[in-house]
């Protein structure tokens, strides 16, 4: 008999409606699981046990009154990059180690309004800069499938928490793959929406033109449930798009007969782990069995994605992180001679090495004499990358690629060579640069039992299509539902 913590949102909602269980029971089950495995996984920075119990009690009262909303009583975890009123929000950094926001971000407000119970704030690479959740000031998160390996990043805590059943579902942010890559490495579903689909208000900014918030779930149906809650226009964000939100659940269970799927030839490169490549080829066969037809396509500027990204993102980040100066909130160094001394000591001690490295790259790329050669050039290449996708989507309904070139690597394996780490984002970065939505869905395991993910990409505001495709894939692939042994 599966524990409550092992169920999905939709399964739990069935039970809640049927009065077979209560939110209090579900929440207690999740916290029991947290107590059992958290010390090994370290998915969380801050647990919200007391408030979760209160919220669960209120949820049960609401259910008794017959007021069940989209997420009433369901325990959800939030990456520690979402501002939560009255609850410490650190962004994985020492420089915000004691910051308590006086406001909730828009997505947090929406989740609260939908009745969600928050379990806590999850671990992440500092300021979302990383692909392994190894740069957090609060320690490393481990991959529940193999505790000697990383869960992916930067939303590693949120992905691991779902994989380890330390929450029913969670949220992360994706700037260059930070939802999709950890989802693949942890064997869960992770979706990055179209840029402008989900409000960024309250999301601590890394790279403003690339950041998006998205869900981690155990299956595609839960993903659709969460997308229904968080998608939509927000007047508090200038880049939020007033595009209608469809009912994403309506896309579940529809078939994909006749769908045209593009397989970009540039994504099948030498560096891919052979087990990953095999799993992806199998996924291609699965979708063909489901009635879709796959054909090779070209995204000619793929090779330039990493370079363009690692100029644009650090440049925007260097500016976004200038506000962390010890003046109004967060960490401030002691014994400062004067203001300049305070700025330098605060920021040097407050930021970790990866953050400093990216601030340096970004500052350099924007500085006088280099702006045209770097930032402007990268922005032009970005336009071409977007055009590549628009071209392919003219006669493809979606694109299929591997999510990550390798399964989860060992802790410490890539920390000495930044360039190596950056190259592991090679399949996910393009979607952020072009602003299109992408989803990673489990597609198999390596011989040693590590999860592998397959990525689907679609055109702007085509999340419905992605959900339809992923749902059909999930049904036909019948990937064995294993659980990590913890």
């Amino acid at each position: 008999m599966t524990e409550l913590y092992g169920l999905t949102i939709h399964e739990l909602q069935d039970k809640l409606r049927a009065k077979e269980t209560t939110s209090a029971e579900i929440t207690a089950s999740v916290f029991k699981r947290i107590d059992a495995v958290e010390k090994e996984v370290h998915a969380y920075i801050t647990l919200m046990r007391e408030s979760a119990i209160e919220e669960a009690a209120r949820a049960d009262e609401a259910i008794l009154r017959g007021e069940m909303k989209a997420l009433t009583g369901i325990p959800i975890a939030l990456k520690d990059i979402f501002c939560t009123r009255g609850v410490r929000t650190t962004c994985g950094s020492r420089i915000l180690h004691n910051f308590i926001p006086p406001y909730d971000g828009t997505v947090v407000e929406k989740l609260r309004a939908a009745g969600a119970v928050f379990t806590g704030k999850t671990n992440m690479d500092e300021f979302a800069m990383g692909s392994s959740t190894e740069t957090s000031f609060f320690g490393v998160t481990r991959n529940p499938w193999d505790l000697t390996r990383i869960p992916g990043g930067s939303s590693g805590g949120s992905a691991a928490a779902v994989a380890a059943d330390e929450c029913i579902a969670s949220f992360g942010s994706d700037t260059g793959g930070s939802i999709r890559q950890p989802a693949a490495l942890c064997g869960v579903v992770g979706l990055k929406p179209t840029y402008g689909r989900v409000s960024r208000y309250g999301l601590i900014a890394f790279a403003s033109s690339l950041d998006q918030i998205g869900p981690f779930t155990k299956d595609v149906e839960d993903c659709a449930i969460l997308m229904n809650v968080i998608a939509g226009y927000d007047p508090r964000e200038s880049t939020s798009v007033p595009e209608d939100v469809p009912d994403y659940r309506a896309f579940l269970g529809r078939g994909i007969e006749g769908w045209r799927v593009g397989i970009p030839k540039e994504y099948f490169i030498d560096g891919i782990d052979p087990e990953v490549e095999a799993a992806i080829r199998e996924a291609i066969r699965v979708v063909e069995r489901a009635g879709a037809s796959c054909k090779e396509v070209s995204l000619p500027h793929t090779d330039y994605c990493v370079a363009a990204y690692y100029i644009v993102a650090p440049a925007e980040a260097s500016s976004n992180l200038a506000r962390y100066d010890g003046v109004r909130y967060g960490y401030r160094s002691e014994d400062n001679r004067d203001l300049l001394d305070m700025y330098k000591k605060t920021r040097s001690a407050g930021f970790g090495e990866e953050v400093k490295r990216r601030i340096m790259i970004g500052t350099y790329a924007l500085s006088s004499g280099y702006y045209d050669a770097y930032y402007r050039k990268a922005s032009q290449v970005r336009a071409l990358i977007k055009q590549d996708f628009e071209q392919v989507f003219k006669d493809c309904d979606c694109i299929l690629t591997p999510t990550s070139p390798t399964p989860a690597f060992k802790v410490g394996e890539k920390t000495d060579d930044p360039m190596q780490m950056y190259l592991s984002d090679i399949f996910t970065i393009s979607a952020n640069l072009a602003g299109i939505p992408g989803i990673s869905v489990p597609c198999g395991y390596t011989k040693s039992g590590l999860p592998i993910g397959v990525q689907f990409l679609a055109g702007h505001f085509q999340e419905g299509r992605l959900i339809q495709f992923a749902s059909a894939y999930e049904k036909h692939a019948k990937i064995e539902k294993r659980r990590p042994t913890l």
Partner: protein
Amino acid sequence: MEYEPVIGLEIHAQLLTDAKIFCGCSTKFGATPNTHTCPVCLGMPGVLPVLNKKVVEFMMKMALATHCRINRECNFARKNYFYPDLPKGYQISQYASPPAEHGWIEMEINGGKKRIGITRIHMEEDAGKLLHDEHNPVSHVDLNRTGVPLIEIVSEPDIRGAEEAAAYLRRLHEILVYLEICDGNMEEGSFRCDANVSLRPRGTETFGTRTELKNMNSFRNVQRALEYEIKRQAYVLDAGGAVVQETRLWDDTAGVTHSMRSKEEAHDYRYFPDPDLVPVVIDDAWIETVLNTLLELPLEKRDRFVREYRIPSYDAGVLTASRALADYYEEVVRLSGQPKIAGNWVMGDVLRFLNEDKKGIRDCPIAPAALAEMIRLIQDGTISGKMAKEVSEEMYRTGKAPGAIIKEKGLVQITDEGALAGTISEIMGKNPAQVAQYRAGKEKVFGFFVGQVMKATQGKANPRVINDLLKKMLAG
């Protein structure tokens, strides 16, 4: 060596919107520190800016009033630097794509008019205030002012002297205040001016090295600072030296400019388009709407008053000091048909009453219609000019209509010739000596008789009628 000063001015004007440029906090001046702040203008993690539409409209008004070309699309940029009064570590401004360019204003100088070009106008956010503690090595930061909307107005280097600069400033100030988009208060910092000044030998074209002047907090100080700096640069050049390109601060007390010891390395602001804001597109329809709200500007109005109402230029100047005053005056003229007389009453008594009470024309208890009525009553002889003084004062004090006041005080002028003739006869009878003196040629005695008639009628007799009758009757 004769030098020609080449001066350009940069004005920052705080806009009179209710809310800040990117958030809903109030822009009201003088609040307790940090009581007009929110996560957005405090630069907290996770916040985002959304542009106040009124800021764009006010910018458009100024752009249209200064004959600028409004660009169809403009963007915001981040100007990156570190300072405690700049919470985000960058100022949101506009750099590569300003909304308005290539305008001009006309100003009056040395009895004529001169045109000064305006290079550009753009929108940006103000920074907070840093207050240095006198006793301790600390500073205090008040962020109420962060995010108050500004427009920056950059002139072409067309200004040729300190006096011209002051005239330009005054003209720009007048336009901003007239448009009601800025209150133009230099002391409170809602109108700020920096100057760029260089010299070149008279008759040459190449620009000399320029210095930037800051910290001039009044029109007078701008003029004094420029006068000083022009002299200083001339001195340096005459001595065979070269002017250093630098920023200099005006020291009001000492009357000199000081070089800012470079605590700043040359600023590298790393401008780039702000990814959190989207472009502003201004189409012809929007420009048309704003153009229609743009009323006549002070200089045009003054010229029209002189032309249309045939009043002296000085009077026109006083009457157009504010749009509200000009509107008041024109209403009185419309209802009375007497522009010169209306002008005298408005400039004289009405403004005097208001100044004594430190009130503005908007709070004037005398309605234009009432003043116009009073003028009509003088014109048709019901009351004398002298009586009107009393009436107007009563109108101001009580807000009552002139008709009511005249009735209450029994101030109706006596114009009945018959009655007056009778009175004059009596007086002449009582004063035969003076009659004889007058008839003998002593014209001054006429005044004595006028005085007697006024006494006898308690000042109510119509002076003109008295004059005519006396002349007739004294002639014999």
